[in-house]
């Protein structure tokens, strides 16, 4: 049995990775899980300069999920390269840097800055509001998706993962646009935009009014989108959205994902990632699967 997978030429020891923004750069969770056991660590989104993020409250609980409006607080690419990459290099796991920006130029600056760094893949978060397009996210318009993919791809030394927004009518349109622009891998889904109102305070639960819904609540929507995208493009897919156990991860793999990311579940079970890795192995043994690839997209 072999759990390795291949993402655009990068071999991961298993398909289990972390979802950006839920795992920092791994330091905090390294107290709970052996990072060497993970296929990859995907870092919190990093921008060209430090971002302070949104005012608090930044999170709220929802039924079987949560809502966040962290606002992409990050220390900026310089401190990130100096501190977070060396930390992760101590471990035998792949490093995927999640990149955010408000303009194409900002994304490109980060991507160029990472060219000489020892990281394995770049994940481009295009759910960020595009300031030049009046704040609608890059990921909500196929032309914008293709354009930013192309610009980033031109400059990237590492293979690029385009991370799709689920807040769209037709996710396959965005997936095809990213593929056309040169994406090596697609990851999905980012959070669904939500809102919560405290009826007793008659105020928004989040200072930002809206936030991104994540966790088990959104899993059926995420599985559907992964299935649709897997049937629309040729590049490999990293599936995520509500994965909390091995069965959940396998659901995404059977729907068409080559790898999976675990986000919100870390917050209620810091050992989730490793438990999922173990559970996938067990499942493969139980049903006699020799490789991950033989399970990818098996349910049609």
């Amino acid at each position, binding site marked *: 049995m072999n759990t390795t997978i291949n993402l655009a030429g990068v071999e991961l020891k298993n398909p289990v990775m972390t979802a950006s923004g839920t795992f920092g750069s791994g330091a905090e969770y390294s*107290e709970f899980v052996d990072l060497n056991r993970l296929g990859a660590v995907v870092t919190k989104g990093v921008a060209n300069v430090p971002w302070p993020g949104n005012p608090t409250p930044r999170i709220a609980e929802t039924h*079987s999920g949560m809502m*966040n409006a*962290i606002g992409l*607080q990050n220390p900026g690419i310089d401190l990130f390269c100096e501190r977070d990459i060396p930390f992760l290099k101590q471990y035998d796991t792949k490093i995927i840097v999640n990149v955010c920006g408000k303009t194409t130029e900002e994304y490109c600056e980060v991507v160029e800055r990472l060219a000489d760094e020892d990281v394995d893949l770049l994940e481009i978060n295009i759910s960020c509001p595009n300031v030049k397009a009046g704040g609608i996210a890059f990921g909500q318009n196929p032309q914008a998706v293709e354009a930013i993919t192309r610009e980033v791809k031109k400059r990237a030394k590492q293979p690029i993962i385009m991370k799709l927004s689920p807040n769209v009518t037709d996710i396959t349109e965005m997936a095809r646009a990213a593929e056309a622009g040169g994406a090596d891998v697609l990851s999905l889904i980012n959070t669904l935009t939500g809102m919560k109102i405290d009826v007793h305070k008659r105020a928004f639960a989040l200072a930002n009014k809206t936030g991104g819904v994540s966790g088990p609540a959104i899993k059926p929507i995420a599985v559907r989108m992964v299935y649709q995208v897997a049937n629309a493009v040729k590049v490999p897919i990293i599936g995520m959205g509500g994965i909390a156990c091995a069965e959940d991860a396998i659901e995404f793999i059977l729907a068409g994902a080559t790898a999976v990311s675990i986000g919100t579940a870390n917050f*209620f079970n810091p050992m989730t990632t490793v438990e999922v890795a173990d559970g996938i192995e067990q499942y493969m043994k139980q049903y006699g699967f020799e490789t991950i690839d033989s399970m990818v997209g098996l349910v049609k």
Partner: protein
Amino acid sequence: MAKKWKEQVTVISQECITEGIYSMWIQTENIALEAVPGQFVSMYTGDGSKLLPRPISICEIDKEKKSLRLVYRVTGEKTGTKQFSQAAAGDCIEVLGPLGNGFPLEEGKGKKAFLIGGGIGVPPILELAKQLDGEKQIIVGYRDTQFLYNEFCQNGTVYVATEDGSAGTRGNVMDAIRANALDAEIIYACGPTPMLRAIKQYAEEKGIVCYISMEERMACGIGACLACVCQSAEKDAHSNVHNKRVCKDGPVFLSTEVEL
């Protein structure tokens, strides 16, 4: 790095100590051994629809029995704290801890100290009062009914403030300090933001070292998600912006470190 554990703890006892406020002793395996006053734990509900932790301060630590006391308010009908309040001796609860930095005890050694608790910020002051080695003036403020009063009396001189005047000074903890003409060389405080703001101002005016314990909504509880930040006066070394994480860099901060 101090160790933390996610444990399935057992409820030893549970008691309603005043309307809506519960006191629970839990049996831990490791958490209690590592815990210091001012730290907190994340409690999980076990209900699949309520996923986030409920951060609850450590009220007392019994290292010998490896147990912790948690005193908490039930905030509403369908809440996680309501669920905790229904747990009986023998029931299990998932708990992550100990979390956060805790109150610095060395700084207060031998000094004349204010230990200030307000409302549901009162509980962590108890273990602090037990462990702090100095002249302890404990000032506790309540809306109406007091709780933990007797326990405090065994660990220092206690001054009470109640908003409705039903006990001690009518008003808040600052009113109690003034009414009793108290002074101190160091302050430790936990309570609602308006109280902390007043204490911070008082301390800075008097030039007293002051530690305050802050609250914010949390997701990870260990410093990874950046949900629980407060604004820091200076650029923070970790965040590289003016934000500190309450769960990891705090919950206890020097009053001069943070903006309120």
